[in-house]
């Protein structure tokens, strides 16, 4: 077990635990506004202080984690559910019309800056967590499709795949039985990285007001609302900012650590 993996797993687990805990317990009522207590620095009553409405920041962070994780997780799920089969199909029919269509389709989506298009999509469909998921999810599809296709192509020329073809197995069955298990490591690693990017994208969309709508707490909007008060109470902006940084850092470390642990080639080198 590498230190990278342990650090990443701990950070990620902390965020997940906070999000889960918020379903049963939060330090305060997230919607309770006590204007008298507004912009308090961290203290015994409010461990991370209060915002401009006097809401408990720790509570908002915990519930905000729920939104971030849900949006990013479902978006990654969309990417895997649609991208992986597309990539497998393209690799199974290498250089065919299907492969060309899928690959050029990937290129087309990649050609647009993802966040700008996500903003466009949410602006057209209307703001909200669901549309944010959709917008981020669409950009995850080509990421997984391209990764899957590249890794699968390398496997298709291997002799054990030829052996399976000699055994009369069809391309779909070979993809499911032989290709997918052998690229699962890659997908898991890419999944954690896309997850962290999803959290960033969700924060970005909420920041411009196109993500989860009030009163649902969200890290991006906490940042946006705190912006005007940075000079008065910097902790209101710094705390959600740090939450985003540590979550993304944790997921990236987890991805790196998983890659090192799961990749048998790297394992041999470390023998």
């Amino acid at each position, binding site marked *: 077990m590498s230190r990278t993996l342990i650090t990443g797993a701990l950070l990620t687990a902390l965020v997940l635990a906070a999000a889960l805990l918020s379903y049963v317990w939060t330090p305060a009522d997230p919607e309770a506004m006590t204007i008298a207590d507004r912009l308090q620095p961290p203290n015994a009553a409010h461990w991370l202080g209060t915002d401009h409405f006097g809401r408990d920041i720790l509570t908002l962070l915990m519930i905000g984690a729920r939104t971030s994780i849900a949006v990013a997780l479902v978006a990654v799920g969309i990417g895997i559910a649609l991208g992986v089969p597309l990539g497998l199909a393209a690799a199974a029919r290498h250089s065919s019309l299907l492969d060309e269509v899928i690959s050029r389709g990937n290129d087309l989506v990649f050609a647009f800056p993802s966040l700008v298009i996500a903003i466009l999509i949410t602006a057209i469909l209307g703001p909200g967590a669901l549309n944010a998921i959709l917008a981020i999810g669409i950009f995850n599809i080509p990421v997984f499709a391209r990764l899957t296709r590249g890794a699968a192509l390398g496997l298709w020329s291997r002799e*054990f795949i030829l*052996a*399976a073809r000699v055994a009369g197995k069809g391309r779909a069955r070979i993809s499911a039985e032989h290709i997918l298990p052998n690229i699962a490591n890659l997908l898991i690693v890419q999944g954690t990285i896309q997850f962290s990017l999803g959290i960033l994208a969700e924060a970005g969309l909420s920041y411009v007001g196109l993500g989860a709508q009030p009163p649902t707490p969200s890290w991006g909007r906490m940042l946006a609302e705190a912006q005007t008060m940075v000079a008065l109470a910097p902790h209101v902006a710094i705390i959600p900012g740090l939450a985003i940084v540590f979550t993304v850092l944790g997921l990236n470390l987890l991805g790196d650590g998983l890659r090192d642990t799961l990749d048998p080639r790297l394992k041999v080198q470390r023998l």
Partner: protein
Amino acid sequence: MTSSDTAHSSRGRGGQRPPHGSERASDPTTLLRARDLKVTIADHPVIHGISFDIAPGEILALTGESGSGKSMTALAVMGLLPDRANATGSLTIGDGENLLALPEKKLCTLRGREMGMIFQEPMTALNPVQTIGRQVSETIRIHTAVPAREAEIRAAEMLARVGLPPDRFPLSRYPHELSGGQRQRVGIAMAIALRPRLLIADEPTTALDVTTQAQILDLLKSLVAEEGMSLLMITHDLAVVSDMADRIAVMNKGEIVEEAPAAQLFREMRHPYTRTLFEASQHRADLPPEQPRTEPLLKVEGARRAYALPRTRPFTARPTFEALKGVDLTLHRGERLGLVGESGCGKSTLTRAILGLEPLQGGTITAFGQQVSPDMPAATRAGLQVVFQDPYGSFNPRHRVRRLIAEPLHLLSDPPQGRARDEAVAEALTAVGLSPDDADRHIHAFSGGQRQRIAIARALILRPEVILFDEAVSALDVRVRAQILDLIADLSRDYGLAWLFISHDLTVVRSITDRVLVMQEGRIVEEGPTAQILDAPTHAYTRKLVAAAPRLPEIGKIST
């Protein structure tokens, strides 16, 4: 081997110098002197204290099977051992210091200048995005202060010296524009650019075709003879070094078991291991007598296969490459047919076409009276099975042996389940000399030879009438190869199996086939009984192949 009294254990590169350094007076008869060289990797010993000398202008061949430590010895001399390796003992060049005690910076100045190394895989040993001129002149410029222009002139001289004259192979060529043999020549030019006193060649011809191999071996011999370099040649192939090396050292499990002048070694073979290796190298499988030909099982008629290459310019027609230009062959029931040819001749394309993995552009292939195509019926497919070359790549690493072997059962309309399936797997494993208990293990628990047995078990489980062996023993050590050839011969006896044995190795083909086809550039150029074709070839290409194949001397026939 006895270890010399000069030997001294020093921990790693930063260790002490041998205490007797001063006694070791400059000895003009020894260039490289290894004394009690020990190498451990992660505290696991791989070389157990070997000693040897190489005289100036001498060729020492270090031979042995994979894992014997021969490559580690070469890497130790170059100071290129893996990070977790630790070498002790002494290695000196001329009257220099112990290489094992030198810091990396010192070693860098010695590499290339005092010792050059030629690697096995010419494609990966060259940088694909640099011209050959740059790569050769770089070696010169790293070690000497000559200006770029002069380094280039010397690079051109070196490339000419290794048979790449600048008028035909300008310095601006890239590695991908050269053939495998030409790339290996560039690798040699880099190694000799500064005229090092010691040249180390690690399996320099293993990745090359026989005709190219013969040319590269000639080049190495002439370099030693004309430039006075010493050569440490690492190879698994006794035949390659038999008429080239001055002395041969046989390694087994990290020890040199026998070392002698080449002729003497082949004459005396003091150590049983040397004898085993030698006998395995020219092993002849005990094939049951050839049966009279009856019905043809497999017929290839006028097979043509063309591949579309990438467009050279946009909007033009894609150029095509014809891998098969009208191939005919017939395999009869119980017949043992061989197919020889060099890389790129179309052997693999033919294999895939026969297995119905790729469509043909012309001609037909019929098996058991049925047309072979990518969508042929399962029953036809079940009669045609294959064993591939690479014992490591032919299995899904995530499945257990049971599932790997049972995979072809999928072709049966009513595949056996549960108990019956386990019995079929157990029977196939037993047929190839493994235990039924092996079914529950993962593939990485098996050695190369055992994996090749598992590959044969997978091919056998459907009791096919025809098996294609695609270079099936090429990746194996000689002793394992002999065992697998015996196993294949047994299959002919027990199952009346017919096979098409594809190989570049004439010795193997001679041992395991009755009839042989010679393939060149997508065509069959000669065919006939194996012994006749290999002993008295008529086609010019076959003659060239036979002449280039390295041959072991016959015991007792070596002049003293």
